[in-house]
């Protein structure tokens, strides 16, 4: 009897695992479909750029405070930690390079994307999910207005355009935070701080940062939009969707960062 129970439990576990895998594949396909539909129906958004600008205000401008404050603290911590290590090797003047490269190559795009997913991504998911729950998207369809071109596409491009700007601002403010700690607090030579940074940060580092921020912008925004569009039209459904937005975006950003960094280092 116990053997039969064990077999049943194993089979049930296998069945549940299979069910979850199929569900995740289905969601991946549905997400890809929404992505391609968004690209297909984007022309309308570019014909009416005020729709994108309006959404950039909500996704980009409204995320500025959390992103700039975080950048300032990240830059200061980097300078403290970096100085602590570099002074052991007598190269504390290189602190400016360390702060700048760490921010431009990695922390700028990754931390900004994680903060963006938490601030703007959840807001997008909740908004779209509630629009669906209150039949606003159905109403739009019944008016012969395509919700993908009117609601989804402007938010998608707003997220994609906002992310590189936010990453640039994050990196700049981070460097200023590092400067405050390294120069004003620790006493590193201000000329060495800036000249070493200028000499060692290459144009390719900045283009790599922009490529990463663009890819993260696409990933975070489409995940947020898909979770909202796919959310069951209930309070619980929208709540789960916002949670999934943060978790999926964070994993996607970290995974994509590794892949992109691998290609950039090889190149």
């Amino acid at each position, binding site marked *: 009897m116990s053997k039969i129970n064990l077999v049943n439990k194993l089979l049930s576990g296998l069945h549940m695992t299979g069910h979850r895998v199929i569900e995740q594949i289905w969601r991946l396909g549905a997400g890809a479909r929404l992505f391609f539909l968004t690209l297909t129906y984007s022309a309308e958004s570019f014909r009416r750029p005020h729709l994108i600008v309006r959404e950039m205000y909500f996704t980009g401008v409204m995320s500025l405070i959390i992103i700039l404050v975080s950048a300032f603290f990240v830059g200061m911590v980097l300078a403290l930690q970096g100085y602590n290590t570099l002074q052991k090797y007598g190269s504390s003047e290189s602190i400016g390079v360390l702060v700048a490269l760490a921010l431009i190559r990695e922390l700028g795009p990754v931390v900004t994307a994680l903060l963006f997913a938490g601030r703007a991504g959840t807001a997008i998911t909740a908004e779209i999910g509630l629009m669906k729950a*209150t039949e*606003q998207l159905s*109403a739009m*369809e*019944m*008016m*012969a*207005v*395509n919700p993908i071109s009117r609601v989804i596409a402007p938010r998608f491009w707003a997220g994609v355009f906002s992310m590189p700007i936010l990453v640039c601002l994050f990196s700049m403010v981070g460097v200023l935070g590092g400067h405050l700690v390294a120069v004003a607090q620790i006493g590193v030579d201000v000329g060495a701080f800036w000249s070493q940074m200028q000499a060692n940060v290459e144009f390719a580092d900045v283009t790599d940062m922009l490529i990463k921020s663009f890819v993260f912008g696409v990933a975070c925004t489409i995940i947020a939009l898909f979770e909202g569009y796919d959310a069951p039209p209930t309070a619980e459904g929208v709540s789960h969707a916002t949670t999934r937005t943060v978790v999926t975006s964070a994993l996607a950003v970290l995974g994509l960062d590794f892949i992109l960094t691998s290609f950039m280092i090889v190149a």
Partner: protein
Amino acid sequence: MTNNIVEIDNLSFGYKGRLLHKGINMVFPRRKVVAIMGGSGSGKTTLLRLIGGQIKPTKGEVRVEGQVVHQQDRDGIFKLRREMGMLFQHGALFTDLSVFDNVAFPMRELTDLPESMIRDLVLMKLNAVGLRGAHTLTPPELSGGMARRVALARAIALDPNIIMYDEPFAGLDPISMGVICDLIRSLNDALGATSIIVSHDVKETFLIADYVYFVANGEVAAEGTPHDLMQSTLPFVHQFVHGEKDGPVPFHYAAPDYQKELMQNV
């Protein structure tokens, strides 16, 4: 041009293995107010979604202006929908737009009218539902009845030939209910449109409908003028019209024997 603007022919629809409609036939003559009534979960709203082409039938067809809805491509369906206006159960107003912008929305999206003309048209539509003075308010500032009236103004923004109402009286106080009731009839007559009302409010619906279909168990259980149906001796219609607790629609959900269930742990 046929006399019927909408025709439902031998329509069946089901999902997840459950057949919601089984061979339904209905016609909606031009310029009439036709009601679809039935209990909760009888598939009344689904019929509106089938007419609007939001879902496809399993069998049979819905024809709007003589065109089979589910055979249209996306552009064809959007073209048909421009002839329709729909009032959703809770209004479905866009919460990020003001009352004025909600009513202006279909005009701005679907026409090239200049803004000055849109302004005049919006004020006319809002005046028709008695809310011209509320055009600067936002949806959260409106009562349920006001939201329903704004949604009605939006539904008639482009002077549709067909106006569909999904539970227009649900959750309204008696005054708002009377106002909506009057508006449905008067707007239908003024616009020369055809109105399709989905409701389970017998009193209000019978006041304004020219013809009524009763849907039960996936079929048309009865049909006729409100007067005919009030006199009907069909058990289902009698129970529904007079709001009786028990009858063909049982009070109790299907359950095992009451006594056995109570005694099973003794």
